[in-house]
């Protein structure tokens, strides 16, 4: 949490005031990014929005949208294939069908939390007689770093490192939500990090096709409030534009070298999402050039999981913005960060986790 307003204590209030005086048509804004969800929950913004304006949490939490299958695959690898699993800490706690990677680790399995693919690659170099599999999760924010590590591995001739890719393409998920009859979205608060790679122009096609104003936002409280003001201004004048409220980090065309890395190392495939199901062209699988580094091709041929959500968990509806976390019957009762039922409660940027941690009183 930041205090950019320290130098200008009035700024936040000015921005908030303007939001509260909004008198345009009703507007449901989806914040796509999990980091925005956390920031919004922490500053307690929802309670202050004027009548008719609401914020929905979207599918932008990488661990949350990863389907149970991936965790089952990782658990299978750790148990049956004698490999070292490296992954992000949050991913270790997500329940698979029967157990979680954290429990596998507690039972003696070799599962290590890492902060980046580079750490995982280092791990493989420290354990040259073992296979290290990195579970790659997330959007265009994290996938370029995986691509970079894979190119490094290839250049170095590393042969005991591979990636189980569950990487996702952001835009198809946004479009799927716009097409979903159960979901009502009038505008998008677009993610800051992913947009650094993708550039802000990539949202124009959706904005035009579906008439959804979209604004790219930074992460500081005042940056989020500013972007919301820009969305409200568009709504009031009946405009539909893509605007960039985070120009210090996001450019029009994005980061071309990162995009080139993605192009080389991955190929887009149909992919299953928690909550959204199978979406065409929405996943990143390793390209044929990197087939030797593809854990799925190396260790999982013939193995197929088609697992379903934990019983009673409404993550599917939460991730689509159909219900707010508190509307899930298990929220804060059977399901808490200490003993999570679904992925949305596990992850620090999952909607349920953020709403629980920073719940209003």
């Amino acid at each position, binding site marked *: *949490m930041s*205090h950019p307003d320290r130098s200008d204590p009035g700024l936040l209030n000015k921005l908030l005031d303007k939001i509260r005086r909004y008198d345009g048509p009703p507007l449901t804004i989806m914040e796509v990014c999990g980091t925005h969800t956390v920031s919004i929950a922490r*500053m*307690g913004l929802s*309670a202050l929005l004027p009548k008719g304006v609401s914020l929905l949490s979207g599918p932008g939490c*990488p661990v949350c949208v990863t389907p149970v299958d991936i965790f089952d695959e990782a658990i299978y690898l750790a148990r049956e294939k004698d490999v070292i699993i490296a992954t992000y800490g949050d991913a270790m706690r997500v329940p698979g069908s029967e157990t979680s990677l954290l429990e596998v680790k507690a039972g003696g399995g070799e599962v290590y939390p*890492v*902060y980046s693919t580079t750490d995982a690659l280092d791990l493989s170099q420290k354990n040259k007689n073992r296979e290290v599999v990195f579970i790659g999760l997330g959007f265009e924010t994290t996938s370029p770093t995986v691509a970079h590590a894979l190119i490094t591995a290839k250049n170095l001739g590393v042969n005991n490192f591979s990636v189980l890719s569950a990487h996702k393409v952001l835009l198809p998920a946004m479009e799927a939500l716009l097409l979903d009859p159960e979901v009502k979205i009038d505008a998008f608060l677009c993610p800051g990090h992913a947009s650094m790679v993708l550039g802000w122009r990539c949202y124009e096609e959706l904005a035009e096709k579906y008439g959804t104003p979209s604004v790219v936002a930074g992460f500081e409280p005042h940056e989020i409030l500013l972007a919301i003001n820009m969305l409200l201004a568009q709504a009031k004048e009946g405009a539909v534009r893509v605007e960039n409220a985070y120009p210090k980090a996001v450019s029009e065309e994005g980061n071309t070298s990162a995009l080139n890395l993605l192009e080389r190392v991955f190929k887009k495939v149909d992919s299953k999402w928690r909550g959204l199901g199978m979406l065409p062209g929405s996943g990143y699988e390793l390209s044929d050039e990197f087939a030797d580094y593809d854990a799925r091709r190396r260790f999982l041929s013939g193995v197929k999981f088609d697992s379903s959500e934990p019983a009673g968990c409404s993550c599917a509806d939460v991730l689509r913005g159909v219900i707010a976390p508190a509307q899930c019957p298990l929220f804060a009762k059977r399901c808490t960060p200490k003993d999570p039922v679904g992925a949305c409660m596990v992850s620090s*940027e999952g909607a349920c986790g953020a709403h629980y*941690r920073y719940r209003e009183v």
Partner: protein
Amino acid sequence: MQKRITTAHGGGGEEMRELISGLFFKYFSNPYLEKLNDFAKVDISSRRIALSTDSFVVEPWSFPGGNIGDLAVCGTVNDISMSGATPLYLTCGFILPEGMPLEDLEEIVSAMARRASEAGVLIVTGDTKVVGRGAGPFINTAGVGAVPDGIDIGGEMAKVGDEVIVTGAVGSHGIAVLSKREGLSFSTEVLSDCAPLNKMVAALIENGIIPKVLRDPTRGGVAGALNEISVQSGVEIEIEDEAIPIEQGVRSACDMLGYDPLHIANEGCMLVVVSQKDAQRALELIQSCKYGEGAARIGRIAEGAPRVTAKTLLGTKRLVDPPSGELLPRIC
């Protein structure tokens, strides 16, 4: 050749005596220790004493802003100080891995000596064991302090209307260790805040300000410590997000890793609950102390069910939960 710890150093023979006289005496020299007994006899002229023990297993043993030796002394000094007592004597047990360079041990021991002298405590007896390679070094320290008459400080003493002060920026220790452990570099280097707090406690008491509660928010961070106090005292604690001092480096590391600075461990700041009438004076006294420049009034004790709430930047009110589970890295 580099000298290393061998099993002989824990074996009770010649090598161990060499280690004791060559290294430990060199740094911890005092008459109690040099008697070479398995015990230390000390004088304490106080009706009540405070005792505490803590084991230190930090990995890696050295981190930006300190090492395990700094922690081993400051940690126990601070635990004793949180009762209002004046810490006097420490004991110290080392569990060292075979193969550890003696140079590293010297770095740790010299840090302990520096901190002990800064805090005005003596390390009066100790023990050394050597174990197989792979883990450690570990250190246990225990300590004793004299509780001044009439001082009754404890987590159960907070009353409605009291104020809460934090004596320095929060979250630095945990982030410093993490940055070293995971080889992360953040835009600004974050140093551990590790420091002895006994002088600060003494400054308050000597000036007639008797805190209700003192608590060093180590593991569990400020959120954990405040929740404990609220339960012990059966009160609501209201803090203000805006008022909590957090260094920019800690802030950005937490943003990046998905942590809440209020959940991160500290080793050189404390929470002070004082009556409202004492609050301003207490703040000024703390700010005039060596580790208190960054102190701030962050909230107050309110009527209500035991819980901790925070006024958000925008003026709404949210719950502050203690952290749950191990802090693990996350994805964005």
